[in-house]
Structures are given as C-alpha cells and as structure tokens.
C-alpha cells in the first residue's frame, strides 16, 4: 500500500508544463490589465498635455489657478488674453449646486418611499421607470432642458429675467439626471437595514414615519451620503446638458451666484474648444487638457471621499 510511486514512470502528482496554457493565461491577464492601462493613460495624457500649455510663452500656471477671467481664444501676447480657470469652476459648482437642490430631495424622497412605503406592485413599476430615466442619453436631456425647461422657466419668471441660456434650466435637468443614481443607491442602503430594527421600533409604538425617518434613515446614512456624493460627481462631469442649455459665456463677475445667467462649465468649455479643431500645440488645444485634468482631479477626489465614507461609517449588523 505504498502511496508514493517511487520508481514508476507515470506519476499522478507531477505536472506537465503546459506552455500553451501559460500563454493563454498571460493573454487573459493582459486583458484584465487593460483597465489599469486606461487609468495610466488618462492620468499620463491629461497631465502631459496640460503641461504643454504652460510651456507656451505668455501662459502661466499661477495665472491659471489664480486669475478670475477666462479669455483663452486670443493671442497670449495680447492684453485681452486671460487664462484663469475660476469662471469655469464657478459655473460648474453653480450648476452642480442647483442640481443637488433638485436631486437630493427628489432622490431621497423616492428612496424612502420605495423602501418603506410602497407596495411591491408600485415598486415593480417605479424602479424600472427610474432605470429608463437613467438610461436616457444625456444629449436627449440637453434637448429637453433647452426646448422644454428653459421656455417653462421663462414663462414663469419672465423673459427679461431669464435669458435663453441659463444655469437654472441646465442645473434642474442635471438634477433630474442624477435622481436615479441617488434614489437607487440610497434605496439599496435602506433596504439593507435589518428588519429587527424596524420591528423593534414598531414594538415600542413608533409610527411608520418615525421608523422611516428616525430609525431606517440614520441607520442607512453612510450609504445615503455616498449616494449623494456619487450624484455630485456625476453632475460635475455632465457635459451635454450644460453645453446645450447653460451657454458658453464664462461669467465676468465672480462669484457668479445668479441662477438666471449664462455660464460656461469646464465640460462645456471642452466641447466648445474641441469644435474648432485647433491644431495640437495651440493654446486652445492644450487648454482643453488643462481643464480636463482639473475636472479629473476633482471627480477622482470626490469618488475617493465617497468610498472612504462608506468604509468608515458602515454600520455592521
């Protein structure tokens, strides 16, 4: 009963080297690693091209971060040329703030309703509708902002108050865009709160409203906060709605807080500048990447914060 074949030529434990399989595995590994190459590519390209902007005579990186006017389409040697990114950043934050004002109440309201109040039948109709809304291409929502929301705002507040291109219309529609994101992630977080917590509260005589708002909502807070932050990140990177409805005029007076003014977000600038098909090496071409690099850093930081919050404050049941 010796288990070890000491002298036999056929071994059940020894492995044949399968070079073909190793090659295939290497190819599979390479395919998985494409995502890492993508990230490295994005970071490398954005910063390399952005750096080229500041090598052009007359363009300074200090001005980029400190100046309060954005007029990049003139010759860098002229007096009119100003390349401070604040007007674009201000516009982006204004639109994002309007979007969150719309999306947070609607998204969280929907999440609480779907998780705590709705009958299974209502849930089965509303959730797919939210998914469809999330799947509508943003260019269609841009059309909706310009041809439906803007005339609506103009008829309510008056055409002398609301110009055709304005931050409010774009901001509201960006808000509608991120409602499904906020609603579905928060709903998941609330549904994950254990039944025992709800039943304990009901047993103590709490009403449904108390259970929803004072027991389930706080228990799911980490998920809800990260949902809002993810929505925030999506709103900052939104491109088509803002370039169609918010206009292409960087605000002159900072801080620009009036929702009924024409603005130009970072993403809208990228689209506008790309449309001219300026050659590589020109101020316009390189400035697209400088603005893109800033946008990337901001969204990346937001996503990291969201992940941290989920990890740090997650309640273990």
């Amino acid at each position, binding site marked *: 009963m010796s288990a070890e074949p000491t002298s036999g030529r056929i071994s059940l434990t020894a492995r044949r080297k399968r070079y073909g*399989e190793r090659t295939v*595995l290497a190819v*599979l*590994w390479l*395919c*998985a690693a*494409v*995502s*890492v190459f993508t*990230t490295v*590519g*994005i970071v490398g*390209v*954005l910063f390399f*091209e952005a750096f080229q902007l500041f090598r052009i005579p007359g363009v300074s990186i200090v001005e980029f971060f400190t100046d309060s006017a954005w007029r990049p389409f003139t010759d860098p040697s002229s007096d009119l040329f100003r390349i401070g990114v604040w007007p674009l950043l201000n516009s982006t934050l204004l639109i994002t703030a309007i979007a969150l004002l719309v999306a947070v*109440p*609607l998204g969280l*309201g*929907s999440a*609480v*309703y779907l998780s705590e*109040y*709705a009958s299974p039948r209502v849930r089965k109709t*509303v959730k797919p509708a*939210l998914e469809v*809304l999330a*799947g*509508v*291409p*943003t*260019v*269609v929502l841009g*059309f909706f902002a*310009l*041809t*439906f929301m803007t005339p609506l705002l103009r008829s309510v507040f008056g055409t002398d108050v609301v110009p055709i291109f304005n931050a409010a219309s774009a901001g509201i529609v960006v808000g*509608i865009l991120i409602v*499904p994101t906020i609603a579905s992630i928060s709903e998941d977080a609330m549904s994950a709160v254990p039944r025992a917590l709800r039943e304990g509260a009901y047993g103590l005589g*709490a*009403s449904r*409203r108390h259970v*929803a708002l004072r027991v389930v909502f706080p228990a799911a807070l980490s998920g809800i906060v990260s949902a809002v932050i993810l929505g925030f*990140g999506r709103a900052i*990177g939104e*491109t*088509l709605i803002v370039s*169609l409805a918010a206009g292409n005029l960087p605000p002159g007076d900072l801080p620009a807080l009036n929702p009924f003014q024409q603005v130009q977000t970072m*993403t809208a600038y*990228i*689209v506008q500048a*790309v*449309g001219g*098909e300026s050659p*590589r090496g020109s101020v316009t071409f390189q400035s*697209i990447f400088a603005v*893109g690099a800033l*946008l990337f850093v901001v*969204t*990346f930081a*937001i996503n990291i914060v969201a992940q941290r919050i989920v990890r740090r404050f997650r309640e273990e049941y």
Partner: protein
Amino acid sequence: MATTTQERRVTPVHDLRSSRRRAVTEQMTRAVLLIATALSVIVLATLLIDILRDGAGRLSLDFLTSYVSRFPEETGIRAGLTGTLSLMALVALMTFPIGVAGAMYLEEFAPDNRFTRLLEANINNLAGVPSVIYGLLGLSVFVYILGFGRSLLSGALTLTLLVLPVIIVAAREALRSVPREIRDGGLALGATPLQVAARQTLPAAMPGILTGMILSLSRAIGETAPILVAGAIAFRRADNEPWYPLEAYTAIPIHIFDFVKRPQQEFQIEVASAAIIVLLALLLLMNSGAIVLRNRYSRNR
C-alpha cells in the same frame, strides 16, 4: 423646565393617544414622499410625449436615407445612422474578447494578492470618471499619437475603453452565477482549470455575458461627449459612408447635438425630435433584446 423636557421625551406616547393627529401627519408624509417619487416618472413621461409629438410628423424613410442638409425639410440622418451602426459593430468586436478574457481572469484565475485588488479597485474607479475625459484620452492617444486621425476607429477605440469596465463587471457576475458543481465536475474528470473555464464555465455563462454586453453597448451608442471630443464630425457635412474604419464619421447623438444648436426652430424642435425618436427606438430594441435573452436563459435554468 424639567417638566417640558419630560413631556418632549414622551412624544410618541402622546402621539399614540391623539391618533387622529398622528394619522394626518402620517398621510402627509406619505403624500410628500409619493409626490417626490412621482415627479421623476412624470418628467420621464413628459419628455417622451414631448418628443413623440414634435418628432413623429418628421419621421419617414427619407429621413433615414438622406444626408444632412441646410434645409430642414430635406435633411436626414443617414450618415449618423450608418456611423452609429458601424461604431456599434466595431465596439462589440473589440470589447467582447477583451471583456470576456479580463472577466475570466479576474473571476477564475486571479490570485488573491495586492495586484488583483488594485485591478478591482481600478475597474470600480473608472466607472466614476466622466465620459468626456475618455474623449480627451482618445483625442490625444488615438487621433494624434497613434495617428488614426478623426476617424471611426478613433471613436470606436474611445468608446471601447469607456464601456470595457462595465462589460467586465457584467461578465464577472455572469461567470459567478455558474454553479460550483459544473467546475468541480470538470476538474474531477481531469480537465485543467483553463479547459474547465473555456469549455464548461464560459458556455454556461454566455447568455448572461451577452445580456450585459448588449446593455453596455446601448449605453455606448447613446454617449455623445466622448466621440464629440475624439473627433466625430459635428459641424461639417459628413457625406461619406463610414464603413471604413479610417474615414471620418458622425453618429446619431452628434446629429442631435448639431440640430439642437441650429438657430432654426424646425431643426431645433422637429428634426431633433425625429432623430431622438430614432435613437431611442434603437436603444429600446437593444434593451428588449437583452430582456428576451435574460428571460429565456432563466427559464432554461
């Protein structure tokens, strides 16, 4: 003072006694939440009705087969339609093998080490990168550094990088749902892990993978920002049939963007709506295909 805090603490009991007031606040909360939920659905319905009403009259076979024109009554979206279909084919051709292979590696073979965790975190982070950033990557790398120019290939490669993380996540889920016993059975019969993965696990997961694939593709063809930045033609007349990867191209979303930006009312409203109907119909077709596939699959299991 002491009594007031005492009273405040027993509010729930107080509520229990005056059950009528409690019922009113309950109903009001429910109503407010219901309105918040209904608003999104109402907006979606308004959007669809608005588009159908404005665009349906402009739809015809001619609209699909003629090129863009200065005159709203003659214009069509032929270049965009062929462009979108070619983009879809190219993106599918590139994402399918890479996505499936990447998912298979991560799900079946990846050792549990630092690099694997980095890969997974990376795939999750890529989902949060705005799509316009992918356009910048494509503009620099594909259009200029690799010299593909403002061509269909540059656009397709850009969209491929954009949807690849989504496809990998979907394919991994499909692979994960294949029962352990199928793998164990294969291994017990002496097959190598790679043989099991290729001949047992992958075929069993294929319907799920295809469903995820179609859904990701439908996301890709609705995207405007990446291809707009990576060189799709928006403002010029695109006359050529973009069947060849190195030629200039346009796509339906780019047409919509262009129409909405034109000053004439007919373009901005009617023609744009008609183009949107075509795009949404295409998306609907793909999504129902995915649902049919998923249903058939779950019935067979």
